[in-house]
């Protein structure tokens, strides 16, 4: 057995510290690579590229380029929470994947569909934009018009509070 430095994966601690600052991102270190997250994962069942245990291994190493680069698979996750259910360490792999998505979004990289839905929400406080046709349909069922959303309150909550540490 040789001891060639080229074969050794170097842990990127700086990236891991950044991930740990996201909400629940600090749980990643408890992963012991048992693979319980794989069996029930629909994305792993239906895709050759997606494997939550491999994602967690890359997280443990801090392989930023593979996790967040052009070939990132994190948006293949179906958000089903089966891995959260199965994980004996309560790592919540789905939440780590969401932390990674948050990191991508902070860099302005977000799938088009997601950008569209979140923009609608940020501008209107709703995921489905209001239109008079909606109230017309509701009236047919004897339902009152949609109750207004105080958008300025929602928008205030999108911004950090003074002195907020991220």
């Amino acid at each position, binding site marked *: 057995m040789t001891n060639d430095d080229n074969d050794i994966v170097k842990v990127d601690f700086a990236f891991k510290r950044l991930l740990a600052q996201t*909400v629940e991102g600090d749980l990643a270190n408890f992963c012991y690579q048992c693979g319980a997250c794989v069996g029930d994962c*629909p994305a792993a069942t239906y895709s050759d590229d997606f494997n939550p245990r491999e994602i967690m291994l890359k997280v443990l190493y801090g392989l930023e380029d593979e996790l967040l680069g052009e070939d990132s698979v994190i948006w293949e996750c179906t958000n089903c929470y089966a891995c959260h259910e199965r994980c004996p360490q309560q790592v919540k792999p789905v939440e780590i994947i969401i932390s990674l998505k948050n990191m991508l979004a902070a860099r302005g990289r977000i799938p088009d569909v997601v950008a569209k839905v979140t923009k609608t929400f940020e501008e209107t406080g709703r*995921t489905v934009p209001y239109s008079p046709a909606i109230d017309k349909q509701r009236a047919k069922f004897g339902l009152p018009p949609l109750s207004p959303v105080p958008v300025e309150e*929602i928008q205030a*909550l999108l911004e950090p509070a003074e002195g907020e540490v991220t």
Partner: protein
Amino acid sequence: MKRFAFFPGCLIPARHPGMEFAIRVTLPRLGIELVDLEGASCCPDPIYFKSKDKLSWLAIAARNLSLAEDLGVDVVTNCSGCTATLSETWHLLHEDPELKDKVNRRLAKIGRTYKGTSRIRHIATVARDEAGYDTIKASVTRPLEGLKVAIHYGCHLLKPSRIMNVDNPDDPQVLENLVRAIGAEPVRHRNWYLCCGKACQVEDIPNNMMHDLLGAVHDESADILGMICPTCFGQFDHGQMKIAKLFEEDYHTPPVYYFQLLALAQGIPYDQLGFDKQRFKPTVLQRYDEAAVVAEA
């Protein structure tokens, strides 16, 4: 009457008013009173907005919960996504006081405080726990006998179970029992545990998954696919057209939201429940109207 703040979310009030109508008609008949939550926003959604900015997601969810706290009641949700967002927020902020402080510093900007005094219940569990199967059964004026309902739980009603606290995610009973209570026959098909695939941003995974799921439902000769989430509903209604075309198969399995079925069983006519808006219309349900007419004659 047990009172709850009604959190309708975005999809049901805007896209599926027939579902909201059914909820508002059926719940009082089960002894459950709904109080409207003025000023509520999107929960926000647990698949897109949470993935963009989880801290803002928590703050806005906490704002929604604080509206119910003002009324001193628990929250009832009618969408699995809203249930996931609000329940997860409650649990995270309960377990992590620092995070709760952080969220409250944001809420202070709009003069609100989140306390954590209102709990969150999905409407299916409210029907099960507050009314009970016997009360539901007693509210039925025309049991949906002979109707085979394939069950689709979706993901966020059950998982993660330590947060959702609804049922055993490996062997859930709640939807089967709710379907039995209205006289129909629940069917657990071989792919019952699969996800609707809405959150996934590559096409092949949800397409193949839905193809397998619909095939399993078809093999059971189920009349309809019963569910309790409007996001899953959209996947199986509009989405089923895409799958049928892609795989050149016609399963023609209409998805139906459970509380519309309950309304029908409580005697609300088919035509008043908004089924005509569906891509796949559950016309099989019309026979219960016809049977009622025959019985009256």
